[in-house]
């Protein structure tokens, strides 16, 4: 039984279809990389999976629960509080007074339930993730006053705090320097090896080819390819895309 299954999904905004005919399964432990041009609907797909917006038609099934239709939360097999999410853009109001530590810790919130404060374990998780992403020294700094890459790492640390089963990342490497990017992909790979399912949007074909188990390639209004990485590299679309982006084929 797949952890997440999309069937004949159509996504879009206010009656305007962005992609239709999306059907794919994600099993626990998979590493799915979503590729496609700018504006092809990758972020929209992730937001739909996260129930931040309703699909125009089609169904999203999650493990053991069956359909969640157009409304309702992700089913009990995969609780929303087991999901980590890194948005592509966060609209944070200018001069929001929040320290890096406060932002990272807020990722643990979904573990708290009704408990009003973080416990020791949650605080430790936050510190560990800041350590992992090399932002421990920034813990007391104001989030708004960081560089773009530092902000990205903060949000990533927050996402890592939130996840236990499934991690959705929307262009995590955007704005990161090459060294941190490489470390980041290794880190995500390690998480995947430890059993976390990864769904990642990336324009970095080299990294996708190296780490992904499955590829979903979204083209203009339809799915160009879905399958394992090996099949993708043999397929027409995959060869063209990989060559174009300078990845090894």
């Amino acid at each position, binding site marked *: 039984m797949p952890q997440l299954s999309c069937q004949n999904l159509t996504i879009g905004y206010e009656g305007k279809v962005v992609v239709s005919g999306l059907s794919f399964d994600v099993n626990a432990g998979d590493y799915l990389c979503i590729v496609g041009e700018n504006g092809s609907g990758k972020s929209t797909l992730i937001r739909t999976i996260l129930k*931040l917006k309703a699909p125009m038609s089609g169904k999203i099934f999650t493990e053991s629960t069956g359909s969640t239709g157009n409304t309702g939360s992700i089913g009990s097999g995969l609780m929303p509080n087991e*999901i980590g*999410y890194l948005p592509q853009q*966060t609209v944070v109001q200018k001069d929001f007074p*929040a320290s890096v530590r406060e932002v990272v810790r*807020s*990722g643990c919130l*979904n573990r708290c339930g009704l408990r009003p404060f973080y416990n020791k374990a949650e605080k430790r998780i936050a510190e560990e993730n800041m350590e992992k992403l090399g932002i421990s020294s920034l813990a007391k700094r104001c989030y708004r006053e960081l560089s773009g890459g530092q902000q990205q790492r903060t949000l990533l640390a927050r996402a890592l705090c939130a996840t236990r089963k499934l991690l959705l990342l929307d262009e995590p490497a955007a704005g990161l320097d090459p060294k941190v990017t490489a470390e980041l992909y290794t880190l995500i790979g390690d998480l995947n090896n430890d059993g976390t399912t990864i769904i990642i949007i990336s324009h970095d074909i080299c990294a996708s080819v190296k780490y992904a188990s499955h590829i979903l390639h979204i083209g203009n209004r339809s799915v160009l390819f879905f399958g394992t990485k090996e099949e993708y590299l043999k397929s027409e679309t995959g060869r063209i895309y990989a060559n174009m982006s300078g990845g090894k084929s």
Partner: protein
Amino acid sequence: MTWNWDKLSEYLQFPFVQYAIITGVLIAFCASLLGVTLVLKRFSFIGDGLSHVAFGVAAIAAAMNLSNNFFLVLPVTIICAILLLRTGQNAKIKGDAAIAMISVSTLAIGYLIMNVFSKSANISGDICATLFGSTSILTLTRAEVWLCAVLSALVILVFLIFYHKIFSVTFDEDFSTATGVKAKTYNLILAVIIAVIIVLAMNLVGALLISALVIFPALSAMRVFKNFKAVTICSVIISVVCAALGIIISIVAGTPVGSTIVVVDIAGFVIFSAAGFITRRF
């Protein structure tokens, strides 16, 4: 100055002055708690709109000769808060227009009703009192002080329980929703708290000046501090100090309570802006 001190200590003996200071401080405490959230969520307008709603309802209550309008004003304001928040969430029509509409209508209707139906001889005086805060803070009964105290305590308790959730929902609502934090519920809780605060604050500074009480302490604190916890604590302290000072000054100098408090808040803002400027420079 000595004369003023004598006068002050003499005044402080009176129970009505003690009541005024206690309730004033409690209300100021609550009002400042949500300042940051209101400012950052662009809810400051909601605060303003709601205070007009509260004014309209208070006018109706006055026309109906209700002795205690509290139990009419509070529920209606809470309902309006929830409605306004709902419209604010639909990105299609920004909440601003809806808020402007509701606030202007209730203001107009309230004034009309007061004029047509009020049996009071001093209508403009009544209206002025509702808009700018009356001397009613000085005429509070023991029961009213208790009501204020209980409501304030509730607001503070709810804020403490949901502190981290309020932070997260204010900082990044999408992330909260996506990771299973019930952002909608917390927005609802926020709306109710805001409504309660506004009805409370109307007693202290009047309908038109509520926003000042809510927003100035937060803005002042944000000049100097850069994290949520420090800003929250600092704005509470600023608010409480300013309210106490304002009430005392108004008693000694015989100025209107509400506007005096707001002027002290403005002075606080100027001081903190300067402090922020200096700490950033050097």
